[in-house]
């Protein structure tokens, strides 16, 4: 037990300070917030992440948001287990046709008002996979999308900026 405490103490707090991004910064990153977010949501969002067909690269970087460096929960952003608890769907991947119904049902199960973030190049435009017999391509081909965070995969920093941009966007 002592060695655990010792390691915790010597590691200290590695969480990095972070400022909410300005519009210009979002634009520079290619992050596109299509609709302005309801004020009710400022301060906190619950996210249900849906992998609709990604290669798992985006998931690795979404995971990183919870590591001690980014610790995205400190901004009131947390990941929930059910779409019924979610304000936001964070969708990755080109939507595979085999996941199309599952994504639609997840969307329907999310209470209004809700927002959809398409994270990663595949979610944004179909990426390397495009549209085919097996893939519907971009998330917006299946459900309405409010925010696009590009990147293959988007870095945790880009994801964080996109998410916080969403919280802070005022009507």
């Amino acid at each position, binding site marked *: 037990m002592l060695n655990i405490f010792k390691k915790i103490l010597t590691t200290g707090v590695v969480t990095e300070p972070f400022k909410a991004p300005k519009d210009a910064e979002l634009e520079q990153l290619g992050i596109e917030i299509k609709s302005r977010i309801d004020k009710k949501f400022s301060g906190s969002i619950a996210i249900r*992440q849906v992998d609709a067909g990604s290669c798992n690269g985006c998931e690795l970087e979404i*995971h990183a948001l*919870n590591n001690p460096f980014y610790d995205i929960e400190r901004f009131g952003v947390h*990941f929930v287990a059910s779409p019924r608890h979610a304000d936001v769907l964070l969708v990755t991947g080109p939507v595979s046709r085999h996941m199309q119904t599952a994504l639609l049902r997840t969307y329907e199960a999310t209470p209004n008002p809700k927002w959809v973030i398409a994270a990663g190049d595949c979610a944004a435009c179909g990426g390397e*996979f495009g549209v085919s017999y097996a893939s519907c391509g971009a998330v917006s081909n299946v459900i309405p999308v409010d925010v696009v965070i590009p990147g293959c995969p988007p870095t945790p920093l880009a994801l964080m900026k996109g998410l916080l941009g969403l919280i802070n966007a005022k009507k």
Partner: protein
Amino acid sequence: MSSSNWTADFLSRLSTDITVAEIDTASATLWQIKSHAWQQFAELAMQQNLRWAAGWAEQVDNRFLINACFEKQGEYILLRTIIDDSNPELPSQATVYPAANRSERHTQDMFGIKFVGHPDNRRWTRHQAWIEKNYPLRKDFPVQGTPVGITPPDMHYPFIKSHGAGTYEIPVGPVHAGIIEPGHFRFQAVGELILNLEERLGYVHKGIEKIAEGREPESLARLAGRVSGDTTVGHCWAACRAMEQTAGVIIPPRAALIRGILAERERIANHMGDIGAICNDVAFVFAQMQFTRLRELWLRTNATVFGHRLLMDKIVPGGVACDLSGESCALIKKEITELRKELAEVILALDLNSSLEDRLYTAGFLSEQTAAAFGTLGYVGRASGQDKDVRRDTPYAPYDQVTVKVALETQGDIASRLWVRYKEIRAALRLLEEFIDRLVAGELCSEWRTPAAGSEGLGIVEGWRGEIISYIRFDADNKIARFYPRDPSQLNWPALEKLVLNNIVPDFPVCNKSLNGSYSGNDL
């Protein structure tokens, strides 16, 4: 590749009605047999302890080429038979090799080839995105297919049922509770005890094999790097090796060493993530926080040195698209020293923790026999006594210049799979140092040569999950005619169905994480 002792001996044992045409290709020994002997060959192969490693088909004009890849003592044999498309059927090898089961079902769904006597010929990759009797990998199937507006859910898949008082079913997925890939698990349980688990994958089938057709080498390498995002280096390397062997391109020594560095960095990053996640699944958050921190530092170095956190698109046909400066080498070496120190401290805390021990030892047991029967690969196989590693057994540059120490455990439980990962991190750190020390000045990429139409090649590398087999056939004008990547997950997933038996349902997440199969790499 020269014939070693076992291949000559093996050929002499084949009954006289099986004739083998030996064809030398650029990267493997190809044995061609008649289709009626397909199963008979497998029977002898099983007797002679050959490992079934991969299976795939392709269509050439009005014929189907059915391939199976076997391995023994580090030597790979590509077995092939050719059948006519008017009545595409042949005897199943899955009756002999359980490892061939899902592969044959995939071929059945994608090509409409019937494997006679297959123990379980339910559809596998096909859900409802295309209709029965349509076969996406046939040449007459358009890449766009004929999709309907909304692909219906796969409602009537005939799952195995359980009957009896007190048994119940738990359907899980495809959308899971965590941040993970989609797939469906169907449990039969009594109380908390798992009686049976059936996996239903294929949800992230993106048509990778189909959209590979017609690409040029660089574009194919990009696609291969996205077969499974966590194995971007591994798959890209395997595909590039296959293409390079086909084209007769030899990569420069410096490029080979850099590829080795990229692959070992990928291995370490994933193993660190996994060890943390395994501990997290039994609520030991300390380890999760420490390992995600170490992983983040590691990925940041990737970004600084190579320009991409996950090292995507750094391997290109003919070499690499990145270089290492002396400064970067010093940075990596310093990082290795620091990581060793940190790991020693964190691992000690794990090892001394009795609650962790209580959850990880004996849980999720996979016997050596089961692991061997399913051809289980990588850390999952090595935790159950399967002493296999392509880097040591069939060395390729740069691993042919160093001694690769292969971690092995025989307990077969979750703890073993954790310790194998830890040992592999240690071994990989040493390899990184050796590769850096051996770096010589020189070219990073060889000039590409367009291979002859119809030429083919195999690329086999040890990815972080285990052996990856990539098959490539070229068409005319440098275009890809066929690409088949065999991710180790394809052979490891069935082992999960076995190792969860008699565990409790709440331990499923940690059992699953200890195996950590790729959904995308499986579904293609």
